[in-house]
């Protein structure tokens, strides 16, 4: 299902809000810079700076959103761009710029709003950390860079912000760098995402070489507008791909790294070593969504050349990768015991959904799930943070239990988040996941992704129920008793819970406002939206699947409170499967014995080559020279020296004479200088007289 081309009138005058759109990322970045100048003790200033700047960004984002919204109500599809030349060499310009359209507007609001809530939550969470100034500084920098990714109208600007995002992710995962695990996880995240980024950069360079511009939109001259696209389609690349598809796949590789898709998903669960607000902000709500957003942003490139109802190689790859990731990560999540790790794999899985949605249903389907997911996953992470905080830094779900009495607020919020994630009817996750399933059902290439996603939904319901059963039901199995978190942490939870409940209603089949908004069409309310053939059946199926997952899990785990050391209920049934799942399909180990082992081997080979081959060659040369030298010495002492000594004596005498010129006396130099002046002046006057 390919998005119809929107007719956008060339934008001549840019509205004031689009003019100052750069302020949205600039404010948090400036705040980060100012915060970096503060002492570690100045935590209040740092937090105030971060939250203040992000509040302003949110305000501006809301203005931008309202502007786009009012345009939309007036029947205009907004796309306002502001470009400028950054570097100019020869006839080539490197342009940067930003764009305001429905997509960027809605993501801006989402990122700044969720970010703000998480910032506020962090005040409570990081209260006892002595480095919280650094924390807020990094968080602001991250928020600024992420907002920069969102507004970028140039792949280069996008890539710069993308890399800053990667950097801050590294810094924040390794925030507690005293822990070896955190340091290792940060390194892993950085290196793994770098693999994707290299491909991304290759794609950018290729695109630049082909089209001569990196601007996405430039009144018809941008790289993903029709003129460039037709040029790209006409260029064949290898393996029967067009240049458009090949570049699209390269860019997708960047998204794979950032969004934790197979096979580069390994960093995301490890990234949970960072502080929980970081996990919530970066590794659930925003940064990992950057990959999805990137695909949505360059969607015209990905979809270039597709016929109506058809698809392209790039989109097919996106779909398959997404669907596989969705099931794969959900399977792993079933057998994890760390509360944040479960959520991390769940995030990977949901990102797979988004990718699949993008691949099969277009921008609106994927982004809708991105938005709803951002809210309920942030909610879940913050809830998990609240649980961890309340349980005195305990992360193993099997050492918890019965928290619904101790932490009622957290429980309520977490429950809502869990149901939304499962896709429980009428909650936000239900509507967005349904959109993806519907798109999968109608996909023209294959039906397999549809079934995979349904199985994924079942697994999602299963592992979330398992987790909730472990954490909140049964009786307390940990050490020190848990306590409810402060209001500073629960109030953001309540906000997020509200959105997890209600946000889905902007994209129901009866009122597909979200899609209409993104596509720039009018949205009407009609119950008949539900009456499309197969839709009700689909909704029924997914409801049944979800309920099935919940009931299954409840049967296995509900109210049981097994001992933390006892084997898991699933482990009793199928120990081998459990082992595979618990060990994450041994992907890390697989990489360990393949990629890393290869590097190790290669390093050893290089070392050997260095020592034996090159070193040997050099040693041989040295030996040869040594022999030559001995010969020389023989000749020297017996033949040359006699004559040479004589010559040297002469030279010494000459040098001694010459060195008198270099006396080290200032006045001598001055004297010579004056003499030279006299000589020059005399010559000049003499010659002018003649």
């Amino acid at each position, binding site marked *: 299902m390919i998005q119809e081309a929107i007719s956008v009138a060339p934008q001549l005058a840019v509205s004031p809000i689009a003019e100052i759109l750069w302020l949205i990322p600039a404010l948090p970045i400036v705040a980060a810079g100012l915060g970096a100048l503060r002492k570690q003790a100045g935590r209040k200033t740092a937090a105030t700076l971060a939250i203040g700047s992000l509040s302003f960004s949110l305000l501006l984002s809301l203005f931008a959103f309202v502007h786009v919204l009012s345009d939309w109500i007036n029947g205009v599809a907004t796309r306002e761009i502001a470009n400028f030349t950054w570097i100019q060499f020869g006839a080539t310009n490197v342009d940067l710029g930003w764009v305001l359209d429905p997509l960027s507007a809605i993501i801006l609001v989402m990122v700044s709003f969720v970010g703000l809530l998480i910032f506020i939550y962090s005040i409570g969470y990081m209260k006892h950390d002595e480095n919280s100034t650094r924390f807020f500084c990094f968080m602001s920098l991250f928020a600024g860079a992420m907002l920069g990714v969102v507004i970028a109208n140039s792949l280069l600007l996008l890539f710069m912000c993308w890399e800053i995002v990667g950097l801050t992710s590294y810094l924040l995962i390794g925030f507690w760098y005293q822990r070896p695990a955190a340091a290792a996880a940060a390194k892993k995240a950085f290196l793994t995402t770098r693999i994707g980024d290299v491909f991304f950069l290759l794609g950018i360079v290729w695109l630049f070489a082909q089209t001569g511009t990196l601007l996405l939109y430039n009144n018809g001259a941008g790289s993903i507008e029709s003129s460039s696209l037709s040029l790209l389609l006409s260029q064949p690349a290898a393996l029967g791909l067009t240049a458009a598809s090949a570049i699209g796949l390269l860019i997708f590789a960047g998204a794979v790294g950032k969004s934790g898709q197979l096979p580069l998903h390994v960093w995301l669960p490890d990234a949970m070593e960072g502080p929980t607000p970081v996990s919530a902000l970066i590794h659930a709500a925003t940064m990992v969504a950057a990959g999805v957003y990137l695909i949505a942003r360059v969607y015209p490139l990905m979809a270039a050349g597709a016929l109506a109802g058809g698809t392209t190689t790039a989109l097919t790859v996106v779909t398959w990768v997404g669907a596989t990731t969705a099931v794969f990560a959900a399977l792993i999540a079933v057998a994890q015991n760390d509360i944040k790790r479960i959520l991390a794999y769940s995030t990977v899985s949901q990102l797979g959904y988004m990718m699949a949605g993008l691949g099969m249903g277009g921008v609106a389907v994927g982004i809708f799930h991105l938005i709803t997911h951002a809210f309920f996953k942030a909610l879940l992470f913050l809830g998990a943070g609240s649980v961890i905080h309340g349980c005195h830094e305990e992360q193993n779900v099997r050492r918890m239990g019965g928290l619904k009495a101790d932490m009622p607020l957290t429980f309520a919020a977490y429950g809502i988040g869990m149901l939304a994630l499962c896709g429980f009817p009428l909650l936000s996750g239900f509507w967005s996941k349904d959109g993806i399933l519907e798109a999968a059902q109608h996909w023209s290439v294959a039906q397999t992704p549809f079934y995979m996603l349904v199985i994924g939904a079942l697994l999602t319901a299963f592992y979330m129920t398992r987790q909730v059963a472990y954490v909140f039901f049964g009786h307390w199995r940990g050490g020190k008793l848990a306590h409810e978190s402060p209001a500073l942490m629960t109030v953001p939870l309540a906000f997020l819970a509200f959105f997890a409940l209600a946000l889905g209603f902007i994209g129901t089949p009866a009122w597909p406002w979200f899609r209409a908004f993104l596509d720039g069409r009018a949205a009407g309310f009609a119950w008949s939206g539900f009456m499309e053939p197969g839709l009700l059946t689909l909704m029924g199926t997914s409801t049944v699947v979800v309920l099935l997952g919940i009931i299954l899990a409840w049967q296995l785990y509900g109210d049981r409170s097994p001992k933390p050391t006892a084997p898991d209920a699933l482990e009793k049934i199928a120990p081998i499967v459990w082992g595979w799942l618990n060990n994450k399909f041994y992907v890390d180990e697989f990489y360990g014995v393949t990629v890393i082992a290869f590097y190790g081997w290669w390093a050893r080979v290089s070392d050997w080559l260095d020592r034996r081959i090159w070193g040997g060659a050099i040693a041989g040369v040295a030996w040869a020279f040594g022999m030559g030298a001995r010969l020389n010495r023989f000749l020297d002492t017996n033949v040359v020296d006699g004559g040479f000594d004589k010559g040297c004596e002469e030279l010494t005498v000459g040098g001694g004479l010459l060195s008198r010129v270099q006396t080290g006396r200032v006045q001598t130099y*001055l004297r010579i200088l004056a003499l030279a002046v006299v000589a020059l002046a005399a010559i000049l006057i003499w010659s002018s007289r003649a």
Partner: protein
Amino acid sequence: MTPLTGYLLVAALLFSIGLAGALTRRNAILVLIGIELMLNAANLNLIAFWRYGPHPEALTGMMFAIFSIAVAAAEAAVGLGLVIQIHRHAHTTDLDQMNRMKG
């Protein structure tokens, strides 16, 4: 003799006196004084040329002299600072003894 010739001759004389001092005195400070005298002679030249030149309203010579005065002040400050430091180091300001680079 035109007025300008007179000024130029005075300047030349002053310059030569400064040069002679710089070439013959032992003390580094006096060498610096000699150089100051040479600079001043040049200033006199500049002002004289400005006064009797074809375009005094352009102020070129005058400006040159003013800037030269400013630069000379800087030169004196740094030069004397160096002399003081050398004195601290080598306990002499006698140029005849200051012919080694090794301290």
